[in-house]
């Protein structure tokens, strides 16, 4: 089902998808860019629905549970065993994780 163009004003254009991909360090094909542009717009359509509710008098909620001030004391606990730390690392060198050149 296709809504009239006036209703479906675009929230996101392809260039923004490219920008988001760049920030996420992933490469997208031309087809994928089209697909994601479409999908992002659909997702944002849902938010438009939420936007219909007037929330001006309601303070923002930062946490789903009604809890505050969850602290721990400054006491040393256990760390991972040395052998385990690098177990899942795709690349390592000695006791280091190895990553591509970063600039």
């Amino acid at each position: 089902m296709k809504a009239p163009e006036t209703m479906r004003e675009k929230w996101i254009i392809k260039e923004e998808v490219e920008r988001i991909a760049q920030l996420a360090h992933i490469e997208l094909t031309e087809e994928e860019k089209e697909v994601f542009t479409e999908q992002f717009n659909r997702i944002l359509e849902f938010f438009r629905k939420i936007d219909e509710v007037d929330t001006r008098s309601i303070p923002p909620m930062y946490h789903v549970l009604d809890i505050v001030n969850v602290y721990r004391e400054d006491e040393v606990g256990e760390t991972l065993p040395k052998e385990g730390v690098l177990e899942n690392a795709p690349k390592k060198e000695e006791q280091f994780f190895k990553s591509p050149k970063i600039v």
Partner: protein
Amino acid sequence: MESIEESVKIGLEVHTQLTSLKTKLFCNCPSDYRGREPNTLVCPVCLGLPGSLPVLNKKAVKYAIMAALALNCQISEEMIFFRKNYYYPDLPKNFQITQYDRAGGAPLAVNGYLYIEDQGYRKKIRISRVHLEEDPGRLVHVGPIDQSPYTLVDYNRSGVALLEIVTEPDLKSPKEARIFLQKLRNILEHLGIFDGSLEGSMRCDANISLAGGTRVEIKNITSFKEVERALNFEIIRQKGLVEKGITVKRETRHWDEIRRITVSLRTKEEEQDYRYFPEMDLAPILISKSFIEEVKAEMPELPEERIERFMKMYGLPKYDAEVLVSSKSLADFFEECIKLHDKPKEISNWMMSDLLRYLYENNIELYESKITPQKLVDMIRLIEEGVISGKIAKKILPEIIVSGKEPREIVKEKGLIKIMDEDLLNKLADEVFAENQKAVRDALIDDKAIHYLIGQLMRLTKGKADPNIANKIIREKIQKIREKELRKNA
């Protein structure tokens, strides 16, 4: 018109580790990562493993409130944490837990200030915010950063508690930036929450603009010694561009400590977009008045109070007290000396003149030297006991500073014990007289020449002659010659 130098505006973003904490900000891994084997102080939280949950270190909040109070800030009643998203291997989660002043967020504290003094004028430096965040891991580049073939990552530092302190662009020169950082360090050290002598415990980014130009950000200034250097370089670079008619680009540059230049890092990339959003894994923090009062009650003595106390307790002039309390290690050193030897004025004089001058000229800090309160006191005692002269003390002090040798041993080893033997000094004075016959004649009528002869005797003994005895002997000899001349003429 304003000169380029006068138009300089500098703002700092300072990151200091809360080095007195035993554990990291959000997990109970030990935070003393220095000199430890890579990736051995880590857990699922600071490695960003799925399913792990951060829990806030209460003491970190307490320390941060202390710092905020000392920096005259307003403390937020409620604060939350945010995720700052960026893809960089120094943080394994691909985001940093930090605080944010937009999107309804409030950092721990805002609107503070600090006064700095430079050559008699006092200046207010506004502090826009103070907040808590986690330190990223340590990246080990193989060679210079822009030539490194790959990067090694150590997450021991990942998650260590950092205090971020941001100033308004109120600093007018690289020197003011250094003075500000020294003052900040002094306060944080007096609070007992920070040790600036630990490598990398204070790092800073600076933004600088001149002549109404674009703001350039300099990252990776890894010690407060480097700040002045990096900013001086940047001013020269930007001035050079302006003189050639080239516009200064808005960009982020990296301070290369080894080559002592700033290098452009993100020319291609557009402005950063960190897509901040609230960190739902952490509950909001309410900072109650009573909690703040509790922290206030525990606040240790701050530098300004300590200066007052030094003046009252030890009878020091204001200037001396200010110099001694300009760093916590210096002030502690002084008070340690007093405990060993209750002569504040003497100790202060030695510290203020010879000790500080040596440290300053050699660009080292007290903790980097080998001198201890005990050694300085021992040296002063040697003078008081008449074993060495003050002149000899001045000579051996650098050696004590550099080698940490016992003053008594240096004196013995080098045969620097004061010469009190009058017969010996008399014989040496004869030599001086024989070699300086003109001065001897002048000395009969001119006091200056007498001083010259005393100086020659001191020189002959390499400063070891007891100055009082040397003085006495030379004057006696001159007097004898005078009497002889008188008799001859009579």
